[in-house]
């Protein structure tokens, strides 16, 4: 059991990591990269089934235990079953054919009138929450907060056409804030994150970082 639970996953991570690095930097190993990247995509496709299984299992548990909000879990099941049924039916053409056009209740209708409309609604609600949160929390409590506040106001005004009506310099100031101080800070963050990601990747490849196996790193 120890071999299957610890040694084998560490070995797989080591071999996959070394092959990934090797094929990226050594040109003669390019054909191997084509094969391994195809494997990756096949595994990624199967991960989709794992995700569906996990989602349905979690919501089934909520329904069975009558947990608070179980009705929302029931909506997940209804949505899933109806969408799958329409996709398999595919306007009478069957599941293995390309998406068939239709003008009634079909997968396209569900996508446009439920998924797209619902997604856009959720996104639009952000404006209300941002306005309320900005009123309550965006306060000039310190010198740093004042700088942040002034920069935010200038960018908010400069990014919409009404800013140019107030002053023709506002869009230029907004552009400068984005292209100079923002760029410098963002680049620093990017370098730090990238170095951290490289270090973490090496720790995983060499088996030092084992938290993905359910144990603490050493």
């Amino acid at each position, binding site marked *: 059991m120890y071999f299957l639970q610890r040694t084998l996953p560490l070995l797989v991570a080591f071999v996959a990591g070394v092959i990934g690095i090797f094929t990226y930097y050594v040109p003669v190993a390019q054909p191997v990269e084509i094969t391994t990247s195809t494997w990756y995509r096949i595994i*990624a496709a199967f991960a989709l089934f794992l995700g569906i299984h996990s989602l349905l299992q979690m919501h089934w548990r909520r329904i069975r235990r009558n947990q608070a909000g179980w009705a929302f879990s029931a909506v997940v099941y209804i949505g899933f079953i109806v969408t799958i049924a329409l996709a398999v039916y595919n306007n009478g053409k069957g599941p293995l054919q390309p998406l068939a056009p239709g003008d009634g209740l079909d997968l396209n209708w569900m996508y446009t009138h439920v998924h797209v409309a619902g997604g856009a609604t959720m996104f639009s609600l952000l404006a209300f929450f941002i306005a309320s949160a900005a*009123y309550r929390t965006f306060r000039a409590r310190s010198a740093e907060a004042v700088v942040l506040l002034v920069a935010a106001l200038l960018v908010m005004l400069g990014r919409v*056409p*009404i800013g140019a009506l107030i002053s023709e310099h506002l869009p230029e100031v907004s552009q400068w804030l984005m*292209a100079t101080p*923002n760029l410098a800070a963002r680049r620093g963050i990017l370098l730090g994150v990238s170095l951290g990601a490289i270090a973490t990747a090496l720790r995983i490849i060499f088996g030092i970082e084992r938290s993905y196996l359910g144990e603490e790193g050493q």
Partner: protein
Amino acid sequence: MIERLLNIDRRIVYLAVFFAVCIPLLIGFELPIKATPNVRAVYDSIESLSGNPDAVVLISFDYGPSSQPELQPMALAILRHCFSRNIRVVGVTLITEAVGLAMQAFETAGEEYGRVNGTDYAFLGFKAGGPILILNMGQDLHGAFPEDIRGVATSEMPITRNLRSLKDFDYVIDLAAGFPGVDEWIAYGQERYRFPLGAGCTAVMAPDFFPFLQSRQLDGLIGGLAGAAEYEALVGKRGMAVSGMRPQSVAHMVIIGFILLGNVVYFLHRSAVRKGPAA
């Protein structure tokens, strides 16, 4: 009074935002829209391809319904620009949710300009793999996408027949709202296969990509609905994005007003608290 303002009912804020969005949609007024250098760069890159009968642009639709209010007008404006200059367009997506939106964009712009699917444009659909799919497209485009969304072989379609790799595209644009998106197209695509890359993204993501503009890994960037409106203005066909600038402008003003009011109330409250014990 100050206490009441400090703890203002959030429904009043919501109501103000609601009217700030609705009234400008009902009342038509013009706002000046001037393209920023980053949006103009994408426009100029596509414009430079006009007159080249073999030019093909690749658009990766990497956004879902939740971000379509910002990115779908962008996609339509770019497609209209390409079709108006007789530039052929191939579309792909790295996320499942984008398939319907991309198809709608191609159908709308294709019908407007009388373009033929398979000859003037093609949508290859979705394949699993995210960033690795980009790598596969660079290695072998026909292998990564053997068929388009209708089931027609990419090795037989006039538009994709001669395209073997990402290197064969004259320009690539990624319209993204998260992962996989612009970062992945730079790391696995542009850096590896060296093609000119432009990007479109949501407004909140745009600041993240400025380092890539300076390093010229991106040659242009369209950020949010404002960027889409600038692109529509450049193309000369004003649509959803330009219309959206009216409510967005007024909503920004209302939010700025609330931030300023919140700070005034905060300072009045703070000075009242400080005076309180002394009195």
